[in-house]
């Protein structure tokens, strides 16, 4: 049977995750347990959610550089307002989603580069987060804490959550009509427009959905760390982009894969642990993490080229 290009795109991320996991287990056999897996992948859940949010934005050919500050802001809201007066917290989140939708409309109507708009917004979110929590603190809502530290039988929460996120977003992005329109907008927005759809509406909805997932990422993060700080998730901007690319997504053309994105987020988290197990000093870890990224992407490029050559023959 001929494999579809989508399946081929998933092979590399899945294989690299498996390889990395095998290496970790080889070096530290005790990680092969319920607690071990949970510890390895705990922090992957908020990253996976942020990666999904970034992937949604990327599916319509845009890029969100405010992801890190926005998730930080959401974490601050979750640790303060949502904890003290839940209703106001929910209202703030709804406002944030509306802001995301508005951003999508603005980018579409004024034909602005999304990078510029989101970079500008990143300062807004960062400022709001500092206003809310000038110094680290706050308390996680007990329900968020309960969800993130739950201990389901057999499989640790981190794995269950990752699978759940992958399944839900796969349904939304790859199976539903809305997902088709969203990816169609990324692939060829003129043809979507010619078919009588409102591309501006599709973009706004996509951005709103991305905002929702970023909010979930913020709440999940607070649930894990119990308190928040205005700079808690700054590295999520680049991690989320790397996760999407690692998972087989592309910057343009509406080629995204939710399952791949979750796998990419898991791989990135695991890469950090792997390097610690290798006893590489933290000074070198970021560089080594970059090296892993480059190797995986080089593999993918090679595979793409192979596929293209096959098609031409």
């Amino acid at each position, binding site marked *: 049977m001929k494999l579809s290009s989508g399946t081929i795109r998933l092979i590399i991320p899945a294989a690299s995750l498996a390889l990395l996991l095998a290496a970790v287990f080889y070096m530290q056999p005790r990680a092969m347990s319920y607690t071990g897996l949970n510890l390895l992948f705990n922090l992957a859940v908020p990253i996976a959610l942020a990666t999904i949010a970034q992937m949604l934005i990327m599916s319509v050919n845009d890029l969100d550089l405010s992801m890190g500050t926005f998730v930080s802001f959401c974490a601050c809201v979750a640790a303060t307002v949502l904890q003290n007066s839940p209703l106001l917290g929910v209202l703030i989140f709804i406002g944030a989603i509306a802001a995301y939708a508005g951003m999508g409309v603005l980018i579409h109507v004024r034909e602005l580069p999304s990078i510029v708009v989101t970079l500008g917004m990143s300062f807004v979110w960062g400022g709001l987060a500092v206003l809310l929590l000038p110094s680290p603190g706050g308390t996680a809502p007990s329900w968020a804490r309960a969800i993130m530290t739950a201990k389901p039988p057999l499989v640790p929460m981190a794995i269950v959550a990752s699978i759940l996120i992958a399944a839900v977003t796969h349904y939304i992005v790859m199976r539903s009509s809305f997902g*088709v329109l969203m990816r169609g907008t990324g692939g060829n927005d003129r043809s*979507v427009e010619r078919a*009588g759809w409102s591309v501006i509406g599709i973009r706004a909805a996509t951005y709103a959905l991305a905002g929702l997932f970023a909010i979930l990422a913020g709440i999940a993060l607070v649930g894990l760390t119990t308190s928040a700080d205005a700079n808690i998730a700054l590295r999520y901007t680049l991690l989320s982009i790397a996760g999407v690319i690692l998972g087989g997504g592309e910057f343009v053309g509406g080629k995204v894969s939710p399952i791949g994105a979750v796998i990419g987020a898991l791989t990135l988290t695991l890469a950090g642990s792997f390097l610690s197990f290798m006893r590489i000093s933290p000074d070198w870890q970021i560089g080594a993490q970059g090296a892993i990224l480059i190797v995986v992407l080089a593999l993918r490029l090679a595979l793409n080229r192979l596929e293209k050559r096959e098609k031409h023959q």
Partner: protein
Amino acid sequence: MTEPLQREEVVAARAIKVTFGAVKALDGTDLVIHSGECVGLVGHNGAGKSTIVNVINGGLSPHEGTLAYAGQEVHGISAARANGVRCVFQELSLCPNLTVNENARIMHAELKGWNWRSRASELVRRQLQKIFPGHAIDCDSTVDDLSIAERQMVEIAISFAGLNQRPKLVILDEPTSSLDAGLAAQLMAYVRTFIAEGGSVLLISHILGEILSTCDRIVVMKDGHVVADRAAREFNTHSLVEAMGNVVREQEFSRKATARAGAPVLSMPPHPRHGIAFEAYRGEMIGLAGLGGHGQTDALLDLYLEHSSNWWPTRKRDIAFVAGDRSLNGTFPLWSILKNLSIASLSQLSSRKMVSQSREATLGAGWKQRIEIRTPDMDNRILSLSGGNQQKVLFARALATTASTVLMDDPMRGVDIGTKQEVYEILRSEAANGRTFIWYSTEMDEIRLCDRVYVFREGAIVAELVGDAISEKNVLAASFSEGEAA
């Protein structure tokens, strides 16, 4: 012309005027399509075919005139679609990252609800089977994985398919451009069945044989006007070509007798499968003609890349390029006029890697006077100039270099006639001084200025015209094949 029974007007565009800036794309055009007829639309580049198609499918609002679907005056893409107007565009307009059935979902909004995927697959598969019996396209495959011909087939099938309501009018813009002869014949046969069932088709094609054999009525457009609108049986290939071109209007140009001295400056082997080779000699002005997008720009790029390393910039370029799309790859919008002009010759203007401002200013002043760039100050922003004057700066940029060969990619698009005449003069004198010009143009008047013309069709040079043989009629006859599709 005398149609005994009054048939329903599917779409009626009357006295449509559309202008893009100074260019009149449509100047009072009428196009009425009745149910149960196949209308052929032919014309040279820029005749307004695509514009009228865009008006009919709702993508473009006419500036003047009336547009009615089945007697009702409504506007917009959704209104056109609601009235059963579908369009297969020349450039493929599927979403390449989606599967075939997902594309059908986008084109057919009514495919909603549970299990739409299998219903979409069923719809496309059935329609494909109807139009192209014996095809081997898997509806679950991504469009990216299909060949160009298969994509075209899918797009045609999706457009002809109807779930609740069948399309009333299908516009086919160069539908057979990437289909082989067998598939093209299947499509034309299906068009006839579709017509027999009461549908209508607007067919645009550069293969006149197809138009003549398939259509009931042929509309010929030129310069935004409909110049002929008659039953297809009243035309033959010859009269159709004549209707498209200027029959009269002979101008005299002082075309110099080409002296092919020495070895060619530039040459290119012929297309692997068909066509003739390209050669350019010193001091010649060579035109690349033919319908737009038939490989002229690619040929220019090939010539350019062959003579300039794409890894390392060479110190002394012997070839210059004037881009056609000013805003996309011509001007530096934030720079001054002078900087835009001198960018290509900075190495001549500098000593020890530093640009000499006085020499730059002299160069600017010289060219400002020579080609009459209308500005008080060469330090003004380039965007302060009109489009025509911007284009003159781009010409000056190429001519100010020491390059002996200048490639031009339809540089006069959207330039007013006065500026054109001035530039023609400069080109002529530069050619007399021994420069070689390779000029792709979609305008017949410019092609007739050239010493020698190569006509392109389907990526290859199909004809070479020299001297007095360069006429609109000969160019048209060579650009439109007579039916033997590639």
